């Protein structure tokens, strides 16, 4: 199950996000890391230092692309320039799969640069799935959609978030990037049981898992990726691994970024859960 058609039949282990404060450390010390996740948009450029660094990283490490602005859930058609650049980058990185979010963020050609929540309707599921198929057919690489953290719910919704995720994934026949921190954040903001969510996801479609930290405010939780992973999120991760098996896992740390070693050590905590999954598979 872990190496499946949604992650290019790979078994990547534990990765971390490639972030600029760590470039020097990575290129000079060459630490042992299973893989790096890059934000695609940061490298969908024509030249310059970012691409030179990426090429140096690619000489040593496996890289997977993660996007933040494809906006599968936006009602408008995919941006052709975006698709063309994404495909060019995918040919450079040889990413076995690529992911972006189950959200929207642009309308009428204007971009909010945010991951806005979907209304969970059948119309939205149909439009979103169609767009995922279009992107996958153009890029010719498996696509995984990531559940986002949200702070609002819509009156028009006709199903729960996990039902919507399943509906989209089935219609698009795509993979899922299961972000257990996002599930936790949304469960606190919308008062649902996060384990119900994790237990409802089709395990065979999970291509990758995200873990991260967040910030707690008085009335809501914000997905800030600026703290270590908290215990309740590790518990969700443990349950997810129990269901889906040994799966490519990535720690996101995007703000107040500590040293490379601190980020990597935090990510490697996932090993204790992955090890027990491997043991269960062996038995």
């Amino acid at each position: 199950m872990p190496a499946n058609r949604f992650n290019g039949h790979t078994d990547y282990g534990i990765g971390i996000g490639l972030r600029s404060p760590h470039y020097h450390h990575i290129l000079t010390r060459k630490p042992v890391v299973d893989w790096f996740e890059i934000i695609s948009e940061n490298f969908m450029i024509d030249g310059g230092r970012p691409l030179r660094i990426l090429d140096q990283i690619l000489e040593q490490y496996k890289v997977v692309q993660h996007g933040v602005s494809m906006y599968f859930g936006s009602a408008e058609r995919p941006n052709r320039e975006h698709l063309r650049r994404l495909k060019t980058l995918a040919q450079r990185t040889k990413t076995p799969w690529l992911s972006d979010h189950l959200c929207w963020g642009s309308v009428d050609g204007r971009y909010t640069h945010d991951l806005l929540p979907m209304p969970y309707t059948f119309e939205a599921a149909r439009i979103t799935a169609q767009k995922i198929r279009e992107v996958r057919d153009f890029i010719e690489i498996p696509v995984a959609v990531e559940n986002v953290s949200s702070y609002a719910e819509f009156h028009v919704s006709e199903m729960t978030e996990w039902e919507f995720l399943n509906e989209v994934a089935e219609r698009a026949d795509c993979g899922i990037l299961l972000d257990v921190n996002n599930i936790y954040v949304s469960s606190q903001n919308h008062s649902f049981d996060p384990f119900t969510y994790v237990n409802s996801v089709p395990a065979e479609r999970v291509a990758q898992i995200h873990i991260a930290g967040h910030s707690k405010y008085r009335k809501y939780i914000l997905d800030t990726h600026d703290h270590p992973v908290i215990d309740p999120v590790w518990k969700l991760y443990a349950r997810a691994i129990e269901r889906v098996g040994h799966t490519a896992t990535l720690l996101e740390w995007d703000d107040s970024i500590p040293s490379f070693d601190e980020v990597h050590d935090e990510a490697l905590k996932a090993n204790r859960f992955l090890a027990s999954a491997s043991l269960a598979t062996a038995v």
Partner: protein
Amino acid sequence: MKLLSLQRRMARAVMTPLTRSERMRTVAPDCRLMRTVANQIIKPNDRLTSFERLEIYNRQYWFRVLSAFAEDFPGVRAVLGGRRFDAMAQAYLVDCPSQSFTLRNLGSRLVSWLQNHPAWAGKRQNLAVDMARLEWADIEAFDGKREPSLKPEDLASVNPAKLRLRLQPYVSLLALRYPVDDLLLEVRKDSDDLDVASNTFSERHKRKRVSAVAKLKPSPIFLGVHRLDEDVYFRRLDREEFAILSALHAGKSLNAAIESALRHSPIALADRAAHVEKWFHTWSALGWFCRLEKSPKTEKAAARK
């Protein structure tokens, strides 16, 4: 409500500017109550009203785009001052919201917008426009395309009267009214120092920067903004250098570009050839010219051979 309709309503609300105290406005630009807009699309919960939930996204949007914009234009910020820059940035982003999947292009329309909205910079309009041009050229130079560079052997059998040289896409040529290159370098040095500075130190530097802007007098300069070993540089150019490069960039042949650039030059006739040779040597060493495109005729000839 259909998906497109919901997304249009929410995007309009999210992209509505915040109040001075960085809260969501109570009245939308179309005079509708924001509370009504929020209630129509978003559910409240036991802790937050619909208005408060929508406000989270409204604030996130503005915090994100304003900080990305300020990061790209520290020089314009130094010219206008922090408070005026923040107000200008908001007005610009209302008129010119992002039309790109990347925040990198957020400031792509700033120069023309500033030219059409002189009130924001007042007496410093020309200075602000010059600085915006330089900062945008810096962004273009940072990650612009690099094509294969011209090599001496490419020129072996080419007639100079017909030779048309192309500049690398990442090179920008700027004719500026103020020496904003020095000012921008000073602003950047200040902000590097501030990363490790105390508040007192920061105040002193702020005063120094304000004084540097105030003292800056008009003094025309010509710049080539380019990239070398992936670092961006601002290279001062002689007037004639700039004229030749601009003419080449506009598609003139090599001979025509040199002739028009030197027609009214004060450089003595006897010295011109040496100057031109020196300039071309420098531009070539910097890799500013792209490799010549083979014309279909040349390719056919090569195929016959």
